């Protein structure tokens, strides 16, 4: 159970029309506490960069053309924007952290979503960003400094090792996952079902940990950049069956999650979650679910 044809056939059985060769354009996210969209777009446009606003994102722009590397401009180095793929800008926007929040970012490296959350929180409240991978955490530290974030503490720790104490009002679990072929050209050659099943089990453990760390009434935002139902809809089904939570209906971009196919028959409420099919959204594959802990 592997290989390009097998996976594409699987996605089509879920109702998609994927070709398996989709790509995603470069995108930036403007750091709203460092500058304004208007000002930065004007500055970059003066330098020959062509940007197009992504209608469903608060501060996201598609890069149509740039005469230089956008990862090395003065404005980038000053933290006025970040390079962040379109779909991956959606989870934090859907979570909508505020300055009053105590936010846990459970798999924070390399820090793109951490700095995005800090912007929504206006650099107030507190973000606790953890990650198991020390090398990748250096990137989180650099991103946090570059974007001038001052409300974050970063810890090199496995999120599963955190004590089970209810302390956070919001948790962002952008879970380690199998990824997708849009951002990994070798994906079809690399992935087999055993990987996906192993990741799905790890994700269930992380979801349980996230809920143990949330206060009652707190919000968990679960996302993956996987297209596989085991890591997405089926994990949410498991979550609803095993935890006392309420699923929040997301009305953002993408399509309602898949609940009813020949091989999948899930709680209809799972359609409240959003699934990004690359051929429809022009992004990488993505899945986003939001629940409130009762």
């Amino acid at each position, binding site marked *: 159970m592997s290989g390009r044809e097998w996976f594409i056939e699987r996605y089509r059985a879920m109702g998609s029309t994927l070709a398996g060769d989709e790509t995603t354009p470069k995108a930036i996210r403007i750091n709203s506490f460092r500058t304004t969209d208007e000002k930065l777009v004007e500055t970059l446009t003066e330098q020959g960069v062509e940007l197009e606003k992504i209608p469903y994102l608060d501060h996201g722009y598609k890069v149509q053309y740039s005469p230089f590397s956008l990862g090395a401009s003065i404005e980038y180095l*000053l933290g006025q924007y970040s390079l962040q793929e379109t779909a991956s800008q959606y989870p934090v926007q859907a979570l909508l952290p505020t300055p009053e929040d105590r936010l846990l970012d459970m798999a924070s490296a390399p820090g793109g979503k951490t700095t995005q959350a800090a912007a929504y929180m206006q650099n107030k409240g507190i973000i606790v960003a953890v990650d198991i991978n020390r090398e990748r955490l250096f990137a989180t530290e650099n991103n946090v*400094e570059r974007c001038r974030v001052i409300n974050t503490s970063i*810890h090199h720790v496995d999120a599963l090792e955190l004590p089970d*104490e209810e302390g956070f009002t919001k948790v962002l679990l952008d879970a380690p996952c199998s990824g997708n072929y849009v951002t990994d050209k070798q994906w079809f050659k690399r992935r087999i079902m055993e990987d996906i099943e192993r990741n799905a089990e790890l994700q269930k453990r992380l979801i349980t940990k996230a809920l143990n760390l949330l206060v009652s009434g707190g919000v968990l935002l679960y996302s993956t950049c996987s297209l596989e139902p085991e890591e997405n809809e089926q994990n949410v089904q498991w979550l609803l069956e095993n935890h006392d939570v309420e699923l929040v209906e997301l009305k953002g971009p993408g399509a309602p999650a898949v609940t009813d196919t020949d091989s999948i028959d899930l709680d209809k409420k799972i359609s409240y979650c959003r699934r990004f099919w690359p051929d429809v959204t022009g992004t990488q594959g993505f899945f986003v679910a939001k629940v409130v802990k009762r």
Partner: protein
Amino acid sequence: MRLLKRFLRDIGSKYKPVDVVNINNKRFSSTLDPPIDIPELVYTGTYLGQNKQRFEPSSILLQTLSDEPSTHKVYVDRDTAWLFVVGKDIFDENIVDRTAGVRLGGYCLVMFGEECIGYGRYETSRDLRVVKNLYDVGDFLRRE
């Protein structure tokens, strides 16, 4: 704290960091209090910089200092700013403005508009006056 204090004095700052935390030779100013006890802290709050041969300030600290009227500053245009963030020194003729505190042998922040892009020492090099690059925000690229 000695190197940090010397750096602040050299740059003409009156800033007094509070609640300074030392993590792996890096200095932070932080009152952040995570809601649960979490081990292995590597970064917290406002990153100030780290001790090397001299104190290497963070971009966050530099920006904070640039807001102080008393700090020494030189101002440059985009072309010169770009050369500076790729590690070059600044020739005196490319400085478009400067504050009163900038003196030969002294230290100054390098400003691009309202943004601080690094700092250097204003000195003579081969009969030319330059701001010698001691730190610039292009360091983010060189770290990775």
